[in-house]
């Protein structure tokens, strides 16, 4: 029996330290210092991995039996599509935390992730169109994946426009937070409805932008690129969060000490 109790104590200690870490992380000055220290590492790591991934994808991966070398565009399309969804989820979760626990830092994260997310969504759209052009013969053939990405871009733009329209930061945070949460609930429904919309298409069944089943030499560059994009996103996020923290905490003492 004692081992069970002992185990439970370990869990308690672990949970407490996690909560303490999470709570300490929640204080803006502490987060600001961590973000300042980690940022160069994130950007540097992202750059290195980007170069490795790009080289792997462009030179080392064998051409695809169906699309030849055209498939190499997935090494920039798939990571940005993945990051666009990830950014929106980060924005929605941060907004929910901000709304429920009134954590100012959570709203900083949400405000910071919107521009970065919009950039990745735009990238996913463009690279998707470029990748589709040789297959469909036009730049935009209403591929379901790209259409859902386009709606996601509208959601990002709507979030940013609402945030701009609200005069006070505190109101802007909570209002855009509600929009982000409502948006994230709608996202799967939008994806499903676009898939259904595409499935009843009477025209000749166009090849969808499916990532071809790849492995080995083709796969590792893609994973490297995704990790690189992830690091880059978090690096950009940290920079942007620091800006948001400065804007919100400009009247506090620790900011005046920091800047003088």
């Amino acid at each position: 029996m004692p081992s069970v109790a002992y185990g439970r104590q370990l869990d308690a200690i672990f949970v407490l330290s996690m909560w303490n870490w999470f709570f300490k992380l929640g204080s803006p000055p502490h987060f600001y210092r961590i973000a300042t220290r980690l940022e160069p590492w994130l950007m540097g790591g992202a750059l290195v991995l980007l170069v490795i991934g790009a080289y792997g994808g462009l030179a080392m991966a064998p051409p695809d039996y169906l699309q030849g070398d055209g498939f190499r565009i997935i090494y920039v399309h798939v990571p940005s599509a993945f990051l666009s969804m990830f950014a929106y989820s980060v924005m929605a979760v941060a907004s929910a935390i901000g709304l429920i626990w009134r954590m100012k830092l959570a709203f900083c994260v949400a405000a910071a992730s919107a521009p970065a997310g919009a950039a990745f969504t735009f990238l996913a759209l463009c690279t998707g169109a470029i990748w589709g052009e040789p297959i469909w013969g036009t730049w935009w053939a209403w591929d379901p994946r790209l259409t859902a990405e386009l709606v996601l871009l509208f959601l990002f733009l709507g979030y940013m426009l609402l945030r701009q329209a609200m005069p006070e930061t505190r109101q802007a945070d909570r209002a855009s937070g509600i929009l982000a949460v409502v948006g994230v609930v709608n996202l799967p429904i939008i994806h499903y409805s676009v898939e259904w919309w595409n499935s009843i298409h009477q025209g000749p069944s166009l090849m969808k932008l499916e990532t071809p089943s790849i492995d080995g030499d083709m796969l590792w560059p893609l994973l490297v690129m995704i990790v690189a994009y992830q690091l880059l996103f978090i690096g950009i996020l940290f920079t942007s969060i620091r800006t948001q923290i400065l804007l919100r905490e400009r009247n506090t003492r620790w900011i005046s000490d920091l800047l003088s």
Partner: protein
Amino acid sequence: MSIFFAVIKHDLAMAFRRWSDLAMPLVFFVIVCTLFPLALGQDKELLQAVGPGAIWVAALLATLLSLNTLFREDFDDGSLEQLALSEHPLSVLLLGKTAAHWLVAEVPLVLLAPLLALGFDIPAAGREALLLTLLIGTPTLSLLGSVGAALTAGLRRASGLLAVLILPLSVPVLIFGARSADLAARGQSIEGPLLLLGGITVLALTLTPFATAAAVRVTLD
């Protein structure tokens, strides 16, 4: 629950005192629907193909137009504050206001759609499907629109913002509504999409009132 119906009664009484505000979205809807034949010509096949989709888009835009002022007057004259300060749950009161708005602004729209469908020479099956899909779909538009209206009620220079916020969210309703109306016009059964549309409406009915209440509290802050 009785307060829910009291709010509806109150809002309906108020709406009928100012019927001109009710007419505006309807007139807008009719005009937009007549623009399409003018733009596309009288070619029957083309109009039949475009008809259901055009009517659905016009209904969506007319809905957003009328939702723009849903909470704006109440915010300006202070009655929104009184609702927020009552002991009754704010989400129920706002659901009442949204329901009253749906009855007053949307139902006439839905009843008018089959008539306008004649202008597109849409067969009876298509017209009936239009009525059904609009009837099931517009509550979701009103509910999503009420969240947007609550978020933008306090903003002075945000006239088009509500549409920009809510249109992307109403894509599923438009897809299931317009596409199934179009399929019905071509004689296919639309059992599946109608049920999906109903599912979305039930989901919107249960979740959006809380978002609207939270949005009103933010606007009043």
